[in-house]
């Protein structure tokens, strides 16, 4: 009998989620950490292995499903959210996860992404944001900073980047978070939160591509500068950061201001208190906007989590309703709907 049936009774371990394929990312690629964290949290979710489905498009990051010993589909470039939607609507019992690169999800796949968010399909979307096209060997992506010199922008890119968090919130994602490949604990925490969310959960993961965009997040990840450049969002807690928690963000009307907590002018009590559950999206946009502001820290953590009915939920509810209303479908009746006549 199937080894798997046995396994179901014993608690799964991260090993159970690893395939026998050797992982083919470049040594040192940030994708390894993301894979490790996913394999670590997966057993914690209490979901049988066969109910996981990992869907990806095309890109280095999109190799992800090959390394997860679950059901997986390495599809075509940009279409993962649309294909994942079909999987979820076909069988809502499945736990559907999308692994996508910044080019895959936001360039060619942008439309499917925002529409999946809009519909609030119950799936998890993990963005591997290395701000570069890795698999095609180093062209700028929709998240690359303006002016970036790449193989396709030898004199510097003239594109303004997207803020993925903005796009997710604006299009209706009900869970939106950000984390980093180099912070395993935090990344695991975000994965657990996303998994627990019912609805479309989006996590932007800052991922280092050490071949074509090495050090893109260095200031946010190295021990020295991390504390001064990153503010960790926690519900109900003030926006405080800095090596010795000496900086904070307060709101002046709608405008965020960085304040120094050492001068005595402002105290923790003046700081902006983070509210993940605020129905008003304005807050999330202001937070995302930090990246556009000089000398502001980069927020990581849960930007927003709200409850809304899911597309898959509503779809099946409607099927039931109508079936109650009209009775279970009967072909013979259906054929005869409308005008019929007999020929003898």
């Amino acid at each position, binding site marked *: 009998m*199937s*080894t*798997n*049936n046995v396994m*179901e009774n014993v608690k799964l371990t991260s090993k159970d989620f690893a*395939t026998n*394929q050797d992982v083919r990312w470049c040594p040192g690629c940030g994708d390894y950490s993301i894979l490790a964290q996913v394999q670590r949290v997966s057993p914690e979710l209490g979901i*049988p*292995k*066969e*109910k996981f*489905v990992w*869907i990806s498009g*095309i890109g280095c990051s999109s190799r992800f*499903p*090959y390394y*997860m*010993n*679950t*059901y*997986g*589909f*390495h*599809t*075509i470039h940009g*279409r993962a959210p*649309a*294909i*994942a*939607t*079909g*999987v*979820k*609507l*076909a*069988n809502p*019992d*499945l736990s559907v996860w999308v692994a996508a690169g910044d080019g895959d999800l936001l360039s060619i796949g942008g*439309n*499917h992404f925002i*529409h999946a968010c809009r519909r609030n399909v119950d799936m998890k979307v993990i963005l591997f944001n290395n701000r570069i096209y890795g698999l095609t060997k180093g062209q700028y992506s929709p998240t690359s900073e303006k002016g970036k010199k790449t193989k396709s922008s030898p004199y510097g890119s003239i594109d303004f980047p997207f803020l993925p968090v903005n796009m997710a919130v604006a299009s209706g994602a009900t869970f939106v978070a950000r984390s980093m490949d180099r912070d395993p604990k935090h990344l695991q925490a975000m994965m657990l939160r996303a998994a627990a969310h019912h609805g479309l959960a989006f996590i932007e993961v800052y991922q280092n591509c050490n071949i074509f965009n090495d050090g893109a997040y260095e200031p946010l990840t190295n021990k020295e500068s991390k504390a001064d450049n990153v503010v960790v969002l926690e519900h109900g807690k003030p926006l405080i950061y800095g090596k010795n928690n000496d900086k904070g963000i307060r709101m002046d009307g709608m405008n965020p201001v960085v304040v120094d907590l050492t001068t005595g002018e402002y105290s923790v009590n003046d700081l902006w208190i983070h509210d993940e559950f605020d129905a008003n999206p304005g807050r999330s946009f202001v937070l995302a906007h930090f990246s556009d502001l000089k000398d502001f820290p980069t927020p990581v953590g849960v930007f927003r989590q709200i409850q809304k009915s899911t597309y898959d939920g509503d*779809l099946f509810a*409607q*099927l039931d309703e109508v*079936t109650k*209303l*009209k009775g*279970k*479908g009967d*072909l*013979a009746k*259906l*054929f*005869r709907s*409308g*005008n*019929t*006549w*007999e*020929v003898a």
Partner: protein
Amino acid sequence: MAKDFEVQVLEDVTVRFAGDSGDGMQLTGSQFSNTAALFGNDLSTLPDYPAEIRAPAGTLYGVSGFQLHFSSLEVSTPGDSPDVLIAMNPAALKVNLKDLKPGATIIINENAFDAKNLKLAHYDSNPLENESLAGFNVILVPLSRQTAASLEGLKLSVKDVERTKNFFALGIMYWLFDRPLEPTLKWLDGKFKKKPTYLEANKKALTAGYYYGENTEIFTTRYQVKPARLEKGTYRSISGNEAIALGFVTASVKAGIPLYLGSYPITPATEILQELANFKNFGVKTFQAEDEIAGVASAIGASFAGNLALTTTSGPGLALKSEAIGLAVMTELPLVIVDVQRGGPSTGLPTKTEQSDLLQAMYGRNGESPVPILAASTPSDCFDMAFEACRIAVKYMTPVFLLSEGYLANGSEPWKIPDVDSIAEIPVHYWKNTETYQTYARDENLARPWAIPGTPGLEHRIGGLEKAHIYGTVSYVPENHEFMVRMRDAKVKKIQDEIPDLIVMGDEDADLLIAGWGGTYGSVTEAVVNLRKKGYKVAQIHFKYINPFPKNTKAILNKYKQILVPERNLGQLSKLLKAEFLVEVIEFNKIQGSPFKSSEIENKIISLFGGKNVN
């Protein structure tokens, strides 16, 4: 006191109702069709709307038409040229006149022929007052005025009165063809349950129209078309798009797995989505996607997860889906792709019919990417072919094309309702055995196992990269690639073993073979029947399976001196036949956004016999 008139018995009549988009011609036409059907005629209809939603009243491009061919014999087309035209205004007359049979009867609403409408129809002089209608049997009716008169005393706005004149016209037609009013009266009861004034108005207009025929002197003849000898059974009228929707629901029930449609609206395919959206109590899921790519992509996802997955579109949408269809080919997932063809290239003639996506379906993907192709031949055949497409898709684990076209989609004909139990089950067995499972192992049909997410112990990964034979893991091995390319090709060819052989209709021993496909069935058949009556020796085959071709195709093609291939494109089937069988064919191509008239085919055939055109 009823006047007396001559009664003429006809075998076969074609009528066309024509007026403004706002004149309700589609409705009037379908009422007449219904009554004819209930009366037992065989029939075929062809609506023809403008591309505009509600084009301004009185304009030429705003004319909406509905053609109906009914008969006491078997009917296979909506009719070449009308015997009777109902023209509600000058534009309707102008647009339709050229199509009429010589000597046809034209019933005209003379009240509509005012300066304004004549100008809108680009008439410099009133055709009712010059020779331009000579040779026709013109019957002028003050439709608007008579309708108004018949509604005296009802509280109705002038606009509403105007709106009712189509029923007055319908009444006249019922009298002219000696038809009962009851079916329409009954339909009105249902339709206007909540609007008693409208109900009364329409009933009055209908009846008034009938007695107008009865009592005025202008009609001297009355026509009868006897019931046709149709196969015994219960019938309904069905359009191609309705039939496809029903075929799919039936396949879902017979396969015992849920139906999933991922689609994006596009003319003339939209009604399939709209129809299926009603069948929620059959567990049918319809997903109106953000675009065609998402539509097919979601269907591929649903197929991976074990649903009976479909996507429906027309030519431009199919172009967008082509990359994703390649993914379904590589992952060998069942998927039915419906292309309701329309005039191309590009946006082309969106509301007109054409047969020009065959080669796109055959070759419109990168790499060697074989997909079976079926083509429906009539509105009711759409039901059978939709069912068949699903059966093949799940049996062989492959995407399958079903080609229809605007003229089948919107046209309708009587459909003998099948007995549900007599329809064969579609066997579907999701793979369960964890010991013997291999993602790309193959059964006797070369199909790989369908192991769906949620099945314990069968966790596996698929994707668009080349697959290793049997194992289904990614493989860059050169020999494996060639093996798999040929395997995918062989799998599609294998379907040949079970699809029905071509049947030679007409004179098997003729020198001339007419080879049609899809929507040309009706016109070709009618032409062949007519010519054989006239003593011509002609054989006919019709392709509903194009990839692969039926097994006996080569044998048949090689049997005939001449092969005529009529197509509404520049010779797409011809190219396939020539490339595969190296046979000479005579191409007969029409690309005018409309079906062949059977007479066009007759004339072509006669010319091949060295003869001159008929009529």
